[in-house]
């Protein structure tokens, strides 16, 4: 009996805006001029935040920080497609997406300065705090999607992850669950090419990360992650399908981590400056700027205003954050359980010396 092909697959690549800012108007998502400007402004703000966070860390005013430099389009474009009722599960490199979702800048600074209160996401914003163990947010996001479906809520969930996470067991388990139960969740993978020092070629032999979705029975799409129109379009469509019960999607945004892994890393040890330079030339903000220039949505005066306002917002957030009194040491205990057990009460009392002041 001859062998026969019983199934074939394909993986789509989406680019709307090329590196020179040329746009395929047929593919362009229906965004108003104002919305396009808003995308640009969010990206500029995200970058201003990122630059400031890096500087503050170097000055000893912030703890270890994971830069988003170069990934602004992937983060802003995807988060912009979310609706307020949607849920979002970030990894630890999601400052841009979190800001678009409405997390106050001062809270992002507060978290990275080592204060858990920065993770108390404001009521009404359905985002989880950042997740550090790689990929472990994926099954949790899948569970939130299950609950939404069970309750009949017409919302979608977005889980952010990176290329390294696709090697984790939780990636497999979370996507598999989402496929089996056809859950309203979008897995937004930013393939930024590096998991600290390990290139994506050491994560997988597969040519794309998007194709991994096929094994779970749903669509995967690869998009130019530095093209904010492509990211927005893919996310917007996937979220829309999720909200109407058409199940999950994996979106691979091909982008690049321009900065070090974190402020504690030195990427010159494992990659070439030439590679970084090549990706700098694909800068997501410059690309949108070129397009907007052609469309009359951008000029020097506008750019100057956006840059200035972003810097002012960031500076104001730093000042606000640095004025926040330190947390109460009792908070170490207070959130362990809904009610403090006797033993923990006793341990909490040990914090305080005979003078009634907490011992450092």
């Amino acid at each position: 009996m001859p062998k026969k092909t019983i199934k074939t697959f394909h993986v789509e690549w989406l680019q709307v805006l090329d590196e020179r800012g040329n746009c395929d108007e047929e593919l362009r998502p229906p965004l108003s001029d104002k919305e396009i400007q808003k995308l640009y402004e969010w990206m500029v703000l995200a970058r201003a935040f990122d630059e400031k966070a890096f500087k503050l860390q170097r000055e000893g005013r912030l703890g270890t920080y994971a830069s988003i430099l170069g990934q602004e389009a992937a983060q802003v474009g995807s988060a912009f497609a979310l609706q307020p009722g949607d849920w979002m599960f970030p990894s630890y490199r999601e400052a841009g997406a979190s800001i678009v979702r409405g997390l106050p800048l001062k809270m992002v600074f507060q978290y990275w300065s080592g204060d858990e209160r920065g993770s108390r996401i404001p009521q009404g914003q359905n985002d989880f705090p950042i997740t550090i163990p790689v990929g472990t947010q994926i099954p949790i996001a899948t569970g939130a999607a299950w609950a939404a479906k069970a309750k009949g809520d017409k919302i979608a969930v977005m889980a952010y992850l990176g290329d390294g996470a696709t090697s984790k067991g939780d990636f497999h388990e979370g996507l598999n669950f989402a496929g089996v139960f056809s859950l309203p969740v979008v897995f937004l993978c930013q393939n930024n090419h590096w998991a600290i020092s390990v290139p994506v070629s050491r994560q997988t032999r597969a040519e794309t990360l998007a194709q991994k979705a096929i094994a779970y029975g749903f669509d995967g799409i690869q998009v130019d992650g530095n093209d904010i129109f492509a990211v927005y379009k893919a996310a917007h469509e996937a979220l829309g399908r999720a909200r109407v019960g058409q199940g999950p999607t994996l979106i691979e945004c091909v982008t690049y981590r321009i900065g070090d892994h974190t402020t504690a890393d030195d990427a010159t040890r494992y990659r070439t400056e030439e590679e970084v330079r090549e990706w700098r030339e694909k800068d997501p903000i410059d690309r949108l700027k070129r397009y907007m220039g052609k469309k009359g949505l951008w000029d020097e005066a506008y750019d100057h205003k956006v840059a200035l306002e972003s810097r002012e917002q960031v500076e104001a957030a730093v000042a606000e954050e640095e004025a926040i009194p330190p947390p109460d040491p009792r908070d170490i205990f207070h959130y362990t359980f809904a009610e403090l057990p006797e033993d923990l009460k006793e341990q909490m009392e040990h914090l305080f010396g005979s003078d009634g002041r907490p011992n450092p």
Partner: protein
Amino acid sequence: MAQLTMVQAINLALAQEMERDPRVVVLGEDVGKNGGVFRVTQGLYEKFGDGRVADTPLSESAIVGVSIGMAAYGLRPVAEIQFEGFIYAAMEQLISHASRIRTRSRGRYHCPLVVRVPYGGGIRAPEHHSESNEALFAHTPGLKVVVPSTPYEAKGLLVSAIRDPDPVIFMEPKRVYRALKEEVPEEEYTIPLGQARIATEGKDNTLIAWGAMLQPTLKAAALMGERGIHSEVIDLRTLSPLDTRTIIESVKKTKRAVIVHEAPRTCGLGAELVARINESALLYLEAPVERVTGYDTVMPLPKLEQYYLPNAERVTEAIGRVMRF
């Protein structure tokens, strides 16, 4: 009042809580049509349907991870991990997320989740089906650990666990599942978490046990009782948070203590109990506290498990030692 096994009592608790609260959902491997490999969830699928009693993929980390997301969203998931030896794949979700989402988010999110897990030896099961790993969970801040010892206890404790706003590891002694029946009220009742109970009062020594070890401990107490030595038996019920007060009050009264657990000795919960007794009742003690435990070895397969598991003889010997000291 009906005489029920622990399996039936847990089943009744699940059915009643699902009836009472539409947010309660059951998920795990084989919990649906099959009713669970121990039949603990039998009949729930038929009664509540696929939407609330879900057979999941064979995927322990996601069973717990997904449950965390469900809990954060507002459901009350009761997840089953089929055997304690398979829960290790889910430890990252338990330790890194379930136990600390309340802390990490400073109270914005919490995780009202129950993970039911049959544990312990004595049923002639294969490797990874007979372990007693409660100390791993008790060592994790933010998790509650509950181990019922009888059918009545199981129902009341499970209801409390399901209603608790924090994650609870509910460890079911599979050796007790069908080994004994007792009267279990159909009516609703709860047993508060964090409170031990005095199973038998006594004045000469304190025996502390939980789960499957309660029966051999009670047997040892009865044997010694015939010889005029009266043990007070504490059924710990909740291993985290610990009811230190009940233990200390008893030890202050009896001045001698024996702790019985089937888990390995080193860093077992017994070590913590000895430390607490030393911290709060050292000068009351007439003898060093004894531990009767499993060994610091891999749990053996069925042909050798009777040598590993503590039994009434080993407990009576330990009682003899603390009395003679």
